[in-house]
């Protein structure tokens, strides 16, 4: 799985969207994308999740994990998006639980590229929780 399948690539710091799949039969979205819905087996359509979402958990990794190219300590958390999908990702900066966040292209280590969550003042649909 390359990062292009996870989000729209762009220069670090640019707002982006997550690539998810959405099932019209049961309403669930999945990240990363799936061929069909793992919950109900129906066909899914490619979808793009832009948020904003609500930060549901905010923590950090303080000891160096095996295989990680990101150097500890670093921030991580969970963003909950409208519709109920919760995605685990890095945080671009320190954020409290409940913060309104968007998805951003992030350089977690020199030359690395992934998505992260950062605070936004954009008003999106109300978060569900």
């Amino acid at each position, binding site marked *: 799985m390359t990062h292009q399948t996870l989000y729209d690539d762009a220069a670090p710091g640019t707002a982006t969207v997550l690539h998810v799949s959405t099932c019209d039969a049961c309403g669930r979205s999945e*990240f990363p994308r799936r061929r069909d819905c793992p919950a109900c087996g129906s066909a899914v359509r490619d979808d793009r999740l832009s948020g904003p979402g609500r930060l549901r958990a905010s923590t950090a990794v303080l000891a160096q994990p*095996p295989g990680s*190219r990101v150097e500890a300590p670093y921030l*991580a958390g969970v963003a909950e998006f409208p519709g109920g999908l919760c995605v685990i990702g890095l945080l671009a900066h320190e954020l409290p639980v409940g913060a309104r966040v968007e998805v951003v292209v992030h350089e977690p280590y020199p030359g*690395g590229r992934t998505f992260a969550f950062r605070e936004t003042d954009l008003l999106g649909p109300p978060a569900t929780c």
Partner: protein
Amino acid sequence: MKDVVIAGAGIHPFGRFDSDYRDMGEVAARGALADAGVGLSDVDIVLVANVGAEMAKGHNVVERIGRTGVPVINVEAACASSGSALFMAAQMVASGAAEVALCIGVEKAPRGFIAASGFEPWQIENGLGVNPLYFAIQAQELIAATDTTVEDLADVSVKNHRHAVHNPNAMYRQEVTREQVLASKAICPPLTLLMLCAPNEGAAAVVLMSRREAERRAVADAVALRGIGLVSRGPDDWFVPAASYQADRTSLSARAAALALDDAGIGIDDIDLVECQDTDAGSELVAYADLGLCKPGDEASLLRSGATALGGRIPVNPSGGLLSKGEPLGASGLGQVHELVTQVRGRAGARQVEGARTGLGHVMGAGHNSCVVVVQR
């Protein structure tokens, strides 16, 4: 589960040892065979739970005991490995495919973070392939949704370490204070080092028999394996290593518990003690509601009431739990069963749960799987 009994149980202490995994597996297996009063030649099938050793690990353990030509099957399901092996062994005995089954769990895990938990490369290289991160998220969600505090998390660890003082098979047998737990090294907030179990080494084993076979052999002190439930991921479950989940998530443990209790034909109120998957302090609290010991939201109240401590209404982890024993992944579930068997036989010494007759064990592992087992004297 009809007419399946645990005829014998054995254990190799959990900790750090110079010995090979074969040595530890052998100690536990010989202990279980001796306790059941049988030899390897009486065994129809051997199931061996292990996560990380090498190819044909179970065969290498059995080779230490004898060459009877018995079928040996290796089972891997992360922290639920030995629950999965026990599930298969129990089904085989219940179905009549085997009269005597030997089930061994063994592990010699390296120190530190557990690697190879099933994360995808993009998660690992970007720092998201970290088990404690998942437990921290779970603990934060519990704190956000209930009145649970960080002090409650610390107190789970304090309780389990107090229990382990009396368990010669535990790795850490010293009491700790709330202050010590809170002041220990932060790993993933709110979790500190002393709120997380340490992957380590050890082994446990049981001999299962049909009740008829146990009676024929006049096995003393057999314990009924009343119920067992094993589940994998359902639509809205979440655990390591999934990168996303639904806001209204469901619980693997709750489904496994419902299956096991239904299989046993009893209710959670009939359970006298619980050994649960306290991979971290938050996981034990989450298990309280998942297993039905309390309503969701009442986890911290149950802990604070003292009900889950030794001497309380429903002691949880009287062995000291994984927080004190450490977690040899492939052996942890059978380690719980060893404790339950010891307890319902009334042989647990200073950590004995008074009047213990029915016990419940619970494991949950990476890759989304959970096993719950109910035993009864």
